[in-house]
């Protein structure tokens, strides 16, 4: 059965940024998943972070405090 939940995907410039962001998100207690970068968004072979869409704005503003500006796409 298809889930009704919507997810946001956070795409980063580098693995360094992914790890910095993961550290911040995990400390904030939000649910997230490390997933391969979906090929429809990038040809990267690395990782990105999937979060619950409801948490997107709070996570983004938290990351901005650390000068981390991911690209956000909805799924």
């Amino acid at each position, binding site marked *: 059965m298809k889930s009704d939940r919507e997810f946001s995907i956070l795409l980063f410039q580098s693995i360094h940024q992914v790890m*910095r962001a993961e550290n911040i998100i995990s400390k904030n207690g939000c649910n997230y998943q490390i997933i391969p970068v979906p090929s429809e968004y990038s040809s990267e072979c690395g990782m990105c972070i999937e979060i619950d869409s409801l948490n997107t704005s709070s996570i983004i503003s938290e990351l901005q405090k650390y000068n981390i500006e991911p690209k956000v796409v909805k799924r």
Partner: protein
Amino acid sequence: MNLYFDNSATSFPKPPEVEIYIREYLLQGGTYGRGAYNRVFLASKRVEETRNLISNIIGTGLNSNILFTFNSTSALNTVIKGFNYKKGRVLISPLEHNAVCRPLQHLKNLGVIEFDILPHCSDGLVDLISSKSIEFDQYDLVIVNHTSNVNGVIQPVSEIKEMIGSTPLLLDASQSVGKTEIRVDDWSIDYLALTAHKGLMGPTGVGALFVRNSDSLSPFIHGGTGSLSESFEMPEHLPDKFEAGTPNILGIYGLYGAITANTERQYSWTSFISLLKELNKLRNLKLLAANNADYQSDVFSIKPLVQSVSDLSRVLYQNYGIETRSGLHCSPLAHQTLGTFPDGTVRFSLSKYHTDNDLEFLLNCLVKENEKR
């Protein structure tokens, strides 16, 4: 008893945590980025944690500007060969290692630069008073070896940077990191090169470069980064711009273990300074150390006056098991500065694992050899 006195070449023994974390990586595996399964995530996280530890050690909040290299030499080459020279002049401190002098000489041979040496005192300490007359804005870059690998002189980096003003400073921290305070942000250091296997007591094959302004350098090595893969151009963002190819993850795990071990020095600094004072009294051996103990690190040299340096090094090993390094220590410029070129010296470099008893034993052996002559 610890008779290994060649820690400036590479530290030994290592903290037990080095083996623990290297073993952890060997059993776990995984590369840095370039995938999204747990093995990769764990390895990447450890690499980034180690990057953060290095930024704390050298005193910078710019952890993205810490770039992993394979040693200090590759870090120094990245700056020296990637720098955009406009004036064609570089100024260096008088106790430089060949990791600096050889890439500079290479550029000189190509007609890219000329290099000059800062005025200095008899022990190679930069003479700040004589240096004041230098027009530093005529130079593209100033390079300073923080701690000499020959006589252990620690250069007054903060004062040097203050003196040279806006001219960029490249600090070679190969011998100082892990031993001497470094405050990259407070001192406004532009570039810093370090290695894992000396003062930090990690494994060989890992180094790091701090770059304050990444636009000032072109990459030294080009290749895959796991980012912007659709392009033949190197990414402009840090750290990827300077981290082509898979890093030495095994070594980085070992370095993580070395840093988190937080090893305390077991001998007292007073005992070390007393050792130098006693050695200075021996008539057949000339001590090479800082003129002022405030500028002394845990490295010093001895020039035997009635035998060759290789003979003294051999006798110390054969008769007492003391391991040292004799010769020029890849630092011909330092030995020219100190008047010990071309024969060099016998070098003694300590570890945090040495004890006061080890220092006493060393002194007794050198006294005994001095009396034989």
